[in-house]
């Protein structure tokens, strides 16, 4: 049996008490890059002034330079127990948040001279944006390849962002390990942005505060899964407590070991895990099929998910072979997700069943509560 204690721990079948930790698994074999997760987050949390360029959830084509541009070369994280200096991602490196020339094209009589396009503000922000390098990928024809990588704050076990904040605005809350920031305390110093090796913190230049994924904590508190997970049409985002030994996350990460953290070498102990993508076989020069070699180079996947990715892919391939030859696979059944709510652990409440009257929402969420998803 699994239970929970008053101190926010999960007691597991072996009697051990582990701190509860919100975790997610994204099955990259099912992600189609539709950006519904990104939009669900955007609509819910970052629609206000100063948040135009914020994508707390972002989906990028891999290989690619990502969001912000070339984030994997920006440093941060921990090495040998010491924080690693990082680069402060600039507004131009995030790009996006564009204003378009609607006025000229639609109403200004210039519809024949110009087309709808972002207005160049001279600060470089129109030369990059979330998902700028969509579907470019890698390899050469006929062995081109790409896949999609959804990214959000990893709500890390060792959050270097929290350690780097001088004012004590950031914290990891005890009840579920979600990493948050008290925006009334944040001074906008942005050491967190430099220190986060995943570069998943954005700056609100209007309000002068840093902001990042809050794991939809008001939804979690009402038993509702985060918007990115619940809205995903691919039904590939598992949400739950990493310490629950019977939950799919624990099984995928620890038992079957097919879900891996991104860039584990960054040292922050991420709690977002990925089932790495299988890929079709390579084609030889004469267009015959090379069954032995996957089109996505395994060494590239290793650069993202570490050396354990090879065993994870082998495991997935062997389970597929078992099913193809008439056998059964609990692992594949788990990844198929026959019933939607199997994804969401304890967070299966349908938000439409909650009291969402304006008065109730205002009490729950405070002044920024006039939002729906």
């Amino acid at each position: 049996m699994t239970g929970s204690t008053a101190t926010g721990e999960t007691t597991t079948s072996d009697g051990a008490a582990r701190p509860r930790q919100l975790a997610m698994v994204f099955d990259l074999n099912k992600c189609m890059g539709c950006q519904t997760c990104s939009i669900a987050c955007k609509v819910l949390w970052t629609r206000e002034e100063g948040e135009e360029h914020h994508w707390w959830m972002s989906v990028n084509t891999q290989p690619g330079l990502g969001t912000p541009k070339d984030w994997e070369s920006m440093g941060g994280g921990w090495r040998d127990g010491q924080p690693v200096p990082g680069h402060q991602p600039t507004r131009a490196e995030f790009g996006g948040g564009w204003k378009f020339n609607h006025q000229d094209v639609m109403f200004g009589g210039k519809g024949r001279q110009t087309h709808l396009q972002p207005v160049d503000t001279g600060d470089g922000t129109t030369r990059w944006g979330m998902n700028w390098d969509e579907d470019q990928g890698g390899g050469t024809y006929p062995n081109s390849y790409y896949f999609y990588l959804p990214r959000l704050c990893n709500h890390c076990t060792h959050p270097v962002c929290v350690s780097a904040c001088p004012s004590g605005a950031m914290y990891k809350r005890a009840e579920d390990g979600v990493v948050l920031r008290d925006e009334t305390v944040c001074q906008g110093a942005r050491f967190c942005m430099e220190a986060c090796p995943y570069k998943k913190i954005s700056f609100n230049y209007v309000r002068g505060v840093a902001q990042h994924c809050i794991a939809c904590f008001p939804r979690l508190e009402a038993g509702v899964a985060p918007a990115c997970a619940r809205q995903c049409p691919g039904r590939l985002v598992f949400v739950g407590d990493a310490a629950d030994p019977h939950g799919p996350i624990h099984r995928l990460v620890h038992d079957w070991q097919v879900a891996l953290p991104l860039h584990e070498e960054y040292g922050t102990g991420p709690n977002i895990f990925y089932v790495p993508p299988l890929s079709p076989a390579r084609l030889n020069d004469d267009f015959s099929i090379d069954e032995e070699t996957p089109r996505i180079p395994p060494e590239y996947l290793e650069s993202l998910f570490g050396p354990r990715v090879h065993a994870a892919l082998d495991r997935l391939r062997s389970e597929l072979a078992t099913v193809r030859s008439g056998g059964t696979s609990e692992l594949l059944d788990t990844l198929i997700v026959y019933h939607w709510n199997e994804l969401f652990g304890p967070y299966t409440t349908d938000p439409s069943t909650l009291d969402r009257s304006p008065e109730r929402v205002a009490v729950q969420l405070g002044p920024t509560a006039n939002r729906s998803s």
Partner: protein
Amino acid sequence: MVSLTLSDLSGAADPGDPADPAWAGVPAVTVPLAPVPVDAQPNAYIRASWADRPYGRTPTADVAAATVGDRLLLRLSWEGSGEAPGEFPDACGALFPGGQGPALPATMGSAEEPVTLWQWRDRTEAQQQAQPAARHLVARGPGVFRPAAGGGELSAAALRTGGRWAVVLSGPRDVLGDDARVAVAVWDGPSDERAGIGAVSAEWAAVVR
């Protein structure tokens, strides 16, 4: 110890404006500034990031002090680095130990000896709609700043002439407390200076009434 004499600017047209001619008659003192020591920075991340990177690039600031009724006005002026603007704004501040306070302002207070910080940051009009350019903080170390509870209304006006800033900070005079001392700090935005990464007065200046 440097001393600053308070002038009475009650008769000035707009003493909150750094360009008001009345400030020409207020004696200004040139205060030497020094980088906040890297060893005093509040966490390992900041110490590691700035150990080999120069900061606190503003060598001096000119300070003049005045009163208008129960308001204290400080006019700070300094030469900016002139480098292209980056991610961080130019900023300045005045530190007040209040009562006893730390012996030196070099670390912007400490957990045991917090100091009051009036800070101004270069913010656009749109940014000021969301958060004013002046903010009233409690400093408990370099960059260990929190919003002050209460503390009265703080305002600021700034003027840039060529590469030189002039800023008037105006707040309640009782911030001086019994032991009227003040220090100033300057952050050079283009050099990514902010929080505890900046230049602060080497010692307190006495405020003479």
